[in-house]
């Protein structure tokens, strides 16, 4: 057995990886929400539901990563500067062949989403870390210890964390210590988060920690090369693929060959929002500027609420439900309004959170 040495051999490294996991899971949410709310109301039902479910499950993944971090004595903090990346941003995939935009729903946007979630397996564990091009500035799953390396895929990134968790657990056990010292009351349990097929898994030991990490990976890209995860729920990659192939999967289908009911897509029933909008796009003193600043402030508040939920007040996640409605309303206010001076282009939320000092609301 020539098991390669794990990249994670200290608790500090594990916590850094898990913080990166929180950033990674969160970073997919603004693009998914932007695409979701760019759809005209009462159109594109199929795409709307796919986007919504995937976004909700990314929030589950965020909670699962927080659970593992909490269980091993770490402290999730979603309010730290740089937690939300500036878009467009790179996500890890071995070829670094795409950046993720904040953009309205389109075929190109869908292709990006497929890349985010695509199943990818590195041939060996050593190849899990591949050299990173110098040009990549914002790498979400970049190896926290080595800025020149990145992971082959999101799934591989989690595989490395699983390996580290197992390694540290064994090491702690050998020394008569326990890795899982976190306060169990900080765990997010199914009472506080529910997303259909996947439930929040409270983490108290190695087994539950691996289950939580395994669920994240399986919900994204399927279990063992299949289209479903362990709960019988269609993985994100295949959910998105249904829109591309314009047909639903059903039980028994092979990857790439859905045989269920047809999926209807109307690529034109979409608000043409400005991709990767920044506050600079909105004139000082304009209503759009105020709405965009207001959105960023309320989204920052929301991340603050999640941080409190992940640090001992899990019941706040129930409040997060109506806060999500508020986020939707705020986003709609921007996405449904034309940008003055740019015919055929609508405004968009900028998600510039903690990147720079917030401009006071107009």
């Amino acid at each position, binding site marked *: 057995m020539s098991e390669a040495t794990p990249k994670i051999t200290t608790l500090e490294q594990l916590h850094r990886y898990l913080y990166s996991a929180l950033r990674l899971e969160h970073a997919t949410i603004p693009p998914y929400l932007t695409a979701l709310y760019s759809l005209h109301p009462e159109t594109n039902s199929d795409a709307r539901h796919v986007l919504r479910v995937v976004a909700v499950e990314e929030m589950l993944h965020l909670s699962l990563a927080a659970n593992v971090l909490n269980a091993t004595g770490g402290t999730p903090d979603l309010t730290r500067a740089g937690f939300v990346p500036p878009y467009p941003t790179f996500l890890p995939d071995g070829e670094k062949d795409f950046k993720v935009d904040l953009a309205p729903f389109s075929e190109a946007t869908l292709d990006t989403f497929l890349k985010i979630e695509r199943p990818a397996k590195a041939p060996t564990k050593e190849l899990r870390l591949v050299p990173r091009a110098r040009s990549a500035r914002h790498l979400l799953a970049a190896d926290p210890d080595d800025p020149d390396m990145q992971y082959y895929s999101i799934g591989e990134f989690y595989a490395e964390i699983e390996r580290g968790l197992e390694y540290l657990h064994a090491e702690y056990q050998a020394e008569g210590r326990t890795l899982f010292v976190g306060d169990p009351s900080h765990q997010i349990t199914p009472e506080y988060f529910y997303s259909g097929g996947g439930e929040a898994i409270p983490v108290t030991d190695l087994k539950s920690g691996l289950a939580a990490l395994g669920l994240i990976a399986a919900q994204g890209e399927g279990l063992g090369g299949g289209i479903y995860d362990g709960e019988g729920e269609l993985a994100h990659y295949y959910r998105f693929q249904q829109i591309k192939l314009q047909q*639903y999967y059903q039980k028994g289908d092979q990857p790439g060959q859905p045989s269920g009911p047809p999926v209807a897509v109307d690529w034109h029933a979409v608000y043409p929002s400005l991709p990767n909008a920044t506050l600079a796009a909105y004139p000082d003193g304009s209503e759009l500027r105020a709405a965009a600043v207001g959105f960023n402030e309320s989204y920052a508040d929301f991340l603050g609420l999640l941080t409190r939920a992940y640090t001992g007040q899990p019941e706040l996640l129930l409040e997060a439900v109506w806060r999500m409605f508020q986020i939707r309303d705020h986003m709609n206010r921007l996405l449904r309004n034309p940008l003055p001076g740019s015919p055929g282009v609508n405004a968009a939320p900028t998600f510039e959170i903690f990147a720079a000092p917030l401009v006071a609301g107009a």
Partner: protein
Amino acid sequence: MIFPQGAANRTDPSDASETVYDAVIVGGGVAGSIIAHELSQADLRVLIVEAGPAEDMTLTGYEGYLSRFYSATSKDNQSPFPRNPNAPMPRSTDARPIVPGQPDTASYLVQNGPYCTDTTYTRVLGGTTLHWEAKTPRMLPEDFDTASRFGQGLDWPVDYAELEPYYQQAEREIGVSADVAEQTYLGVTFPPGYVFPMRGIPLSYLDTVVGRGVDGTEVKLDGESHTLRVRPFAQGRNGVPNPAYDGGKGYLPTGAVSTHQVQEGERCQGNNNCVPLCPVQAKYHAGKTLAKALGKGVDFVAQAVGYKVHVDPVTGRVSHLEYRQYRDPSSADYVTRTARGRIFVLAANAIENARLMLASGLRDSAGLMGRNLMDHAYILCWALLPEIAGTMRGTVCTGGIVDLRGGSFRRQQAAFAIDIHNDGWGWATGSPYTDLHAIVDAQNKFGPALRNALVNQISRQLLLAYMIEVPPSPSNRVTVDPAYRDQLGNMRPVISYSVPDYTMRGVAYGRRLARRIFERLGAEDYTYYDPADYGYVTHEGNGYCIRGGNHLAGTHVMGTAPANSVVDSTMRSWEHENLYLAGGGSMPTIGTANVTLTLAALCYRSARRMVEQVRRESAPLAVSAAH
């Protein structure tokens, strides 16, 4: 919940008419779906004959209902559903004051009066549970023998204890969110350790504001003292699963129905338009059960309206059902078909069951078919609270006052339960749309002033809706008349109905109590009953507008003998031993409980008997060999 793709059309109706099913069920609503699912679990061969359109239940189809509702000018219970002259539905907007001696024949229900009901039921897949509010209180133990106890109504042939395990089954299927401690009152008991599938839906802020004024209020009735408090209702909508359910196995909420996998509706989002349609299907509807039954292989023929139940004159058994299958909702073309089975189950609701039986010329020996039609009588009392109380934060109804559901006063006057409506004055005045018109047109407000005025007006609204007991009365009835038919040639229901004095005494008391509650809350009473209203009823010099509750019951009541009832305690017809009349129509009284949970429990109980009957009657004859 996956609806099997193509299931709405997969059964060839000509093949079906050549098949002798174990059971033929008329109606794909809550009663029919539960029975179909139970029988299919016992491996019986089942056919459902459904009047509604033959379309698979899909998320996009459901969203078509939503779009129709969103764009409808009238937001009544039937606004989401397309008009279908081949399976017409009563609509509350059809109700008109009735001139004595002149029946109102303009809409589907022919109304003789004197009272004009605005009650409705829905003839689509899933039935009236598509628009129900999904309150799921159990009946009180004292509701089962009101004749013996209070000298009012009829006694049931079963009691609470007998029905209790079936209530549990119904609560599992519907997915009830409630806390046992809150639902244990006025004699309602649960087995030790029982928990509901999901934890209770919390009280709204409005409930707590009302509670501050109401809790601890003492009222005296018939010499008994009752202490009032605001209490949460049991609800058939998805909440937080209780991990202690089912001996610690927990509960998995059932979400939206579609032909492909969707994750929606596993939790109530508080959208507040539960009636007429939950936007996310967090509210139970019978499509969830129907999808399961179809997944078990139940055959299904839609666009098929029962025309006549045929009975063998020698044995008295039902030989076959004659139904008319229309080609398209917009066309009057149809073909006549038959369905054959060992047993037949009419599960088309209290009015349609009686209508079909009477149209088939099937009257029971006691002449009770169609009689004792019941529906809860509602009165609405509304006021403006002195403070912003968060009205419009859903769901539609989370709490109310249930302390006067029972008591010795029921000898003299009807019991009631009071709903606190989280959707403001909507039911009474058409708010918030009417408020908008008033503020724009009469007050000439716009912009921020309009927004502020709307918030100030709407979020202070308090509506108390009294759901008042209506005892069975033989003169309240469904009949048919060959002169009145629908497009398909089916005889339409003819309704004769008056609100009993017993009920009106409860109404008058309820109105007085509302004044007292409003006073305690410092709320300004805006209640007004228009004498020109179709539901206007006078009692001891005062007038009240009575609304229907869509809790139809009593047209084929159950009892202990053919002389006092149409069906036995298993909802089996006394006259026709292979015919079951399922649903609210079999209930001899309705107390102050919304009827769905109880009728669902009755269906679970009856399904056992149906399975036994089919197995017994289809078993090979035991030929005794020579000993």
